[in-house]
């Protein structure tokens, strides 16, 4: 049997002989009398399994392409052999049948409770696919060459399961953002920040595991969520504190992106550690743990954005509830690792529901703010241009400053008020156009308007700015729209 097996014979041969041919590694007959060196008998698919694989042979002979029926054979073999005990059969057995090398490859994966039947069988059969590698994973994991570069379909599936769900979820969240509050650049930056947080946590967790080796379980349940959520929280807190995000929807997207970046690095590191591990693990990690990382960070950011909007709290108190909620949910997830499927289902089913509600209310809130604030801006504009300006509240306030500031400075204050109002209106009309899906053209005047704004702030000076502050819109959302407009300059 050669390496370049005919597609239709490869599975048949494996089924009949249960041997794993490899280039340079001959196959010895059962009993150890063959002349080829270092033959390996598959620990799982032995002669007793011929029935199931012969069934597959029939499928191949009947003219179906083997890869078409591969999934079927996987299922069939798993069903037939799965009922047997495979607890110790996962090791690689030498052909003389005397020594068994323990399967250390599973490493941490072995810690997972066997919630799925015949995991080893599914894995082993899945990795014996036509036109792909014909050796069990044990050989590959020992660092020996695989047969061809195209023989990693199992790895591709694991990568996809580990990384795709969280990225697709993030893409869906971004698509739901009807006002396009978050740019792709911001999302990528948040992903990077999450990745950085993961690297930091890896170092911290490793040190803590080493330093307090007797408390690893407790740390995983209670300590790690604190460290990880704080590390993730640094970036979404920064975004909210600096008015780069101001609504629940954009906070959710940015928070989720930070968590997604974290989860990507975590899963990539696990992909490296748990090479060749069961696909089930990656379903759990991809749909469960990764979504959880994104979800709890998103919820933390949403809570903080809500508190910011309601103006109930300020400073550290603004972010503490969101961070505590993220830590609490993360810790709860880690407590329920004995029930990974339930945790995964809760994350996958619960989060879209919560985020759907959040996006709905965020859109409502944004629409109200947009309308109300725009009307106030128009009123200010109308008032500045009217004959009754001096009788207005703003005019009266500026007149009250005449003893403290010279007329030219009061003129600059009025110009500043008019300019901030105009910029605010521009930002809102952009949002209005985005809401209905109309394209927003770059504004060539924006640069000069921001230059004028800086000039006026400098001319008025710190004291004058303090005096004029009551007239200027300085809420976090007002600062956000200025920041958003400023982004258009870059």
């Amino acid at each position, binding site marked *: 049997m050669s390496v370049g097996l005919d597609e239709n014979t490869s599975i048949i041969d494996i089924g009949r002989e249960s041997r794993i041919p490899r280039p340079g590694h001959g196959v010895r007959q059962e009993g150890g009398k063959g002349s080829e060196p270092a033959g390996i008998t598959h620990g799982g698919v032995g002669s007793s399994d011929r029935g199931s694989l012969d069934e597959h042979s029939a499928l191949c002979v009947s003219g179906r392409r083997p890869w078409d029926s591969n999934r079927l054979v996987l299922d069939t073999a798993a069903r037939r052999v799965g009922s047997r005990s495979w607890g110790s059969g996962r090791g690689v057995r030498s052909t003389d049948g005397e020594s068994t090398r323990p399967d250390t490859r599973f490493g941490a994966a072995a810690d997972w409770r066997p919630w799925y039947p015949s995991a080893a069988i599914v894995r082993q059969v899945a990795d014996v696919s036509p036109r792909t590698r014909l050796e069990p994973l044990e050989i590959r994991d020992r660092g020996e060459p695989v047969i061809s570069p195209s023989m990693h379909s199992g790895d591709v599936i694991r990568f996809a399961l580990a990384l795709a769900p969280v990225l697709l979820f993030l893409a869906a969240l971004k698509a739901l953002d009807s006002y396009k509050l978050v740019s792709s650049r911001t999302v990528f930056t948040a992903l990077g920040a999450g990745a950085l947080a993961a690297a930091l946590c890896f170092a911290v967790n490793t040190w803590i595991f080493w330093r307090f080796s007797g408390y690893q379980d407790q740390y995983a349940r209670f300590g790690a969520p604190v460290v990880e959520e704080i590390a993730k929280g640094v970036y979404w807190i920064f975004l909210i504190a600096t008015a780069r995000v101001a609504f629940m929807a954009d906070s959710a997207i940015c928070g989720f992106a930070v968590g997604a970046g974290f989860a990507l690095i975590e899963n990539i590191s696990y992909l490296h550690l748990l090479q060749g591990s069961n696909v089930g693990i990656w379903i759990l990690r991809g749909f469960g743990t990764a979504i959880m990382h994104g979800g709890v960070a998103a919820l933390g950011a949403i809570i903080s954005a809500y508190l910011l909007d309601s103006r109930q709290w300020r400073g550290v108190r603004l972010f503490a509830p969101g961070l505590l909620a993220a830590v609490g949910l993360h810790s709860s997830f880690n407590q329920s690792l004995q029930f990974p499927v339930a945790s995964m289902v809760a994350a996958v089913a619960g989060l879209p529901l919560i985020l759907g509600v959040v996006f709905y209310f965020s859109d409502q809130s944004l629409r109200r703010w947009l309308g109300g604030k*725009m*009307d106030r801006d128009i009123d200010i504009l109308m008032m500045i241009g009217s004959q009754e300006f001096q009788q207005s509240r703003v005019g009266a306030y500026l007149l009250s400053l005449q003893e403290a500031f010279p007329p030219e400075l009061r003129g600059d204050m009025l110009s500043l008020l008019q300019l901030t109002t105009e910029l605010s209106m521009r930002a*809102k009309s952009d949002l*209005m*156009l985005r*809401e*209905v899906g109309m394209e927003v053209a770059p504004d060539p005047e924006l640069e000069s308007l921001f230059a004028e704004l800086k000039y006026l702030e400098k001319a008025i000076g710190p004291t004058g700015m303090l005096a004029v502050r009551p007239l200027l819109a300085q809420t976090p959302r007002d600062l956000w729209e200025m920041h958003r407009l400023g982004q258009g300059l870059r």
Partner: protein
Amino acid sequence: MTIEQSQVGDKIVLHVAGRMDAENAVQFERQCESCIAEGFTSLVIDLCDLTYVSSMGLRSFVAAAKKLRDKGGDLRICRLTGLVRQVFEITRLNQVFPPHDSVESALLEG
């Protein structure tokens, strides 16, 4: 706010007067929708007597323009004055709806 509707060829001219605020902007949007439903895809909005436009009014213009453009038509605005002109310029909606000086020039375009 009052809206007077007239038809010139295959185009509809809507003369809007008064204040377009949150309460009556919906009225303008409905009028536009009924024109679209009747098969007209080009609307000319004469705003010479409009003295005030609120955010809801601006939103109505944008929403109507979007619907018309989706059907291959357009919304044209003419005779902007005073505060309304200023608001359109500041919000740069004059880039989205290039204003015309007269109803005739708006009708002739396209």
